[in-house]
């Protein structure tokens, strides 16, 4: 290995200092982008949590007036949007970014600058959405934005239409990036069936995004043109049909919920084997089930419309399709349990969150199957029973899985361990607070409490009031718990115990390289010969199938590892993605306020930025990007 960091040797015209503000703005390093995602997500999670706290404060008792209805409606709308589009999805993107290249043995993603572009679009999209608070009020038409209500100017939903559109572009770009990276950038020997399960789930999620995002894009364009430019897509007065919006939204919306859960499932599938010291049970079935969930997930959208204007035939068809999603999901649940079965389970915080995921997600899944009983869905729909369902799958599922991932990979990112004692306090308070908040909602929902109501109607009775009070108390526990987490996070970054390269005795190749990983990830790209490559380099199997540690370096012929490149060529930082992306702000405001001047400025800005991007070589020293394939272009 001659030079590991080509960067240090080449003089450059662009921000080349490895630290400082500008180095973050210009970074094209997937790891740094992952970290940017993570902190942005935390900030938005805090905001979304504050919004939900206000919601719960208002609903703590019947007929309170902590919030006016105007504010309340903005709160639950922004809470939903924030948690879905600005927290869970980008949280998953943070993991994809940081881990994907490390897990498949690549030096970066296929299109590093496009990757930066995705992040900036995400950030500006979030800022754009939140700027609405200072520009006459936030959107208040709910996160599903049903037309024609949302085409009404007082709903402020133009911000929603444009804001989500921006976030969609970000997601679509990452999806393409990750698909290409997985298909094209795997280390030698890393066949599809040797990929870590997390990579499989990333691939499935990316395909879901790829096919779902364009649909919502169309729905949002229509919504926005109805709202701002008087188009007639959903205006019943002229023959437009509001049901079309519902179809388009849920054609996206249901795949979207699996977009949110599959990454968490991938994380759990990495954590469980490591801490059970066993390989993932039923690897092929797991990969297949994930793909099946994604696939069937495209065919169940109308289960959100069971009480809408659709007839008995579609109701029946979608009911059946919906129920059968439980089959592949069940496969996953049982395979996780059997991964633990017979293992030597170490209950670290990461493992606790993963087990918590399996347990809590099952509850949410079962209430999901109850939703699919169409005749009774008419009682459950738009009540807190649904709110309970989706918080169990989203919070108890997605968020538990993602937090498990934070504890698990924290040492990889920082070289330090998170405090386990605080971690366990965090877990148990989190589990308790979560169930206290959302468990009672099952009951209040069945007792008839509708969702999206700005006050808790007193006529619902004392029982419902009690449940609501419990829910509100749960948020207090959650807030304390979240603060513990944050404290642990910051403290451990500063002064956590050093972790070494492989603190968990892990199985996958991201743990083979230095911790924290160098800019180019691997000095030598490993040649992969089996699933759980790293584990097989550490352990041989005795005749009874029991692993025996092998002396370091003995098992694998280091020479066989590929990539003895003389110079590892990393893409240089670039300011263009950030510059280019900035143009989306004038463009967005222009569209919201029907101001063609702003639209023009934004468009020209972005086109100019695009040319700057294209003209700038990927890496300094190349007079141009390489003529041949395989390069990280774009």
């Amino acid at each position, binding site marked *: 290995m001659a030079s590991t960091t080509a960067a240090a040797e080449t003089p450059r015209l662009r921000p080349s200092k490895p630290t400082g503000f500008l180095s973050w703005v210009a970074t094209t390093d997937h790891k740094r982008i992952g970290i940017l995602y993570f902190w942005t997500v935390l900030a938005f999670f805090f905001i979304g949590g504050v919004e939900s706290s206000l919601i719960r404060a208002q609903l703590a008792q019947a007929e309170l007036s902590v919030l006016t209805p105007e504010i309340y409606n903005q709160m639950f709308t922004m809470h939903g949007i924030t948690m879905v589009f600005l927290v869970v999805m980008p949280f998953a993107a943070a993991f994809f970014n940081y881990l994907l290249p490390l897990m498949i043995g*690549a*030096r*970066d993603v296929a299109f590093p600058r496009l990757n930066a572009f995705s992040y900036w679009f995400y950030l500006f999209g979030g800022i754009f959405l939140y700027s609405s608070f200072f520009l006459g009020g936030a959107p208040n038409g709910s996160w599903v934005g049903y037309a024609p209500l949302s085409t009404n100017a007082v709903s402020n939903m133009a911000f929603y239409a444009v804001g989500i559109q921006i976030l969609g572009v970000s997601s679509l770009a990452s999806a393409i990036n990750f698909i290409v990276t997985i*298909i094209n950038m795997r280390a030698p020997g890393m066949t599809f069936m040797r990929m870590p399960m997390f990579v499989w789930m990333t691939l499935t999620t990316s395909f879901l995004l*790829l*096919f779902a995002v364009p*649909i919502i894009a169309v729905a949002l364009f229509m919504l926005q043109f109805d709202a701002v430019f008087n188009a007639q897509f959903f205006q019943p007065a002229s023959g437009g*049909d509001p*049901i079309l919006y519902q*179809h388009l939204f849920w*054609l996206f919306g249901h795949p979207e919920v699996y977009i949110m859960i599959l990454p968490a499932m991938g994380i759990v599938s990495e954590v469980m084997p490591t801490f059970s010291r066993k390989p993932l049970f039923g690897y092929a079935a797991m990969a297949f089930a994930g793909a099946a969930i994604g696939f069937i997930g*495209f*065919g169940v959208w*109308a289960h959100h419309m069971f009480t809408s*204007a*659709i*007839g*008995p*035939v*579609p109701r029946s068809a979608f009911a059946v399709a919906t129920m059968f999603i439980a089959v592949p999901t069940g496969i996953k649940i049982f395979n996780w349990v059997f991964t633990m079965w017979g293992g030597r389970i170490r209950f670290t915080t990461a493992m606790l969150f993963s087990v918590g995921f399996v347990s809590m997600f099952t509850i949410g899944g079962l209430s999901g199957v109850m939703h699919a009983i169409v005749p009774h869905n008419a009682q459950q729909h738009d009540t807190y029973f649904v709110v309970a369902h989706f918080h169990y799958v989203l919070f108890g599922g997605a968020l538990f899985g993602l937090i498990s991932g934070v504890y698990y990979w924290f040492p990889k990112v920082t070289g330090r361990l998170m405090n386990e004692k605080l971690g366990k306090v965090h877990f148990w308070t989190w589990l308790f607070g979560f169930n206290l908040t959302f468990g009672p909602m099952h009951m209040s929902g069945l007792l008839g409490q509708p969702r999206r109501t700005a006050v808790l109607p007193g006529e619902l009775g004392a029982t419902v009031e009690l449940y609501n009070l419990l829910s509100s108390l749960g948020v207090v526990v959650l807030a304390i718990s979240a603060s513990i987490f944050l404290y642990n996070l910051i403290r451990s970054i500063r002064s956590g115990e050093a972790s070494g390269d492989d603190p968990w005795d892990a199985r996958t190749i991201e743990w083979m390289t230095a911790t924290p990983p160098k800019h*180019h990830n691997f000095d030598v790209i490993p040649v992969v010969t089996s699933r759980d490559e790293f584990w097989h380099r550490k352990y041989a199997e005795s005749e009874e199938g029991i692993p025996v540690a092998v002396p370091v370096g003995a098992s694998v012929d280091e020479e066989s590892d590929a*990539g003895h*490149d*003389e*110079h*590892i*060529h*990393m*893409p240089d930082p670039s300011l263009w993605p950030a510059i280019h992306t900035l143009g989306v702000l004038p463009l967005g405001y222009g569209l919201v306020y029907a101001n063609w001047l702003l639209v023009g400025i934004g468009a020209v800005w972005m086109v100019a930025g695009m040319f700057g991007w294209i003209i700038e070589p990927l890496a300094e020293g190349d007079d141009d990007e*390489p003529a*041949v*394939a*395989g*390069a*990280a272009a774009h």
Partner: protein
Amino acid sequence: MSTTGGTAAETAEHEEHAGHHPTPQEYVRIALILAALTALEVSTYYFEFGAAAIPLLIALMVIKFVMVAGFFMHLRFDTKLFGRFMYTGLGFAVVLYTATLLIFVVDANQ
């Protein structure tokens, strides 16, 4: 990331494919066929084709689509993966939107 290794493999592939790529003359011939098909399409506007018109138009559309994708976009010569991607997208679109429109039709009298 590094492209050093790729050069050889890629150029080899290029050469291997080069033979299969149509020549400019062939491209022109394909374009002429496309033009003729278009003329046939437009003729449905001028002449009465009766019940055959719609199936005919759809068939022509599909043929034109496949020809452009196959020859001009090199799907016939490139790796199968690209074609699979495209037809997956197309398939998803056709199935999902047909189902959606069917729901509207089924409920027209509901």
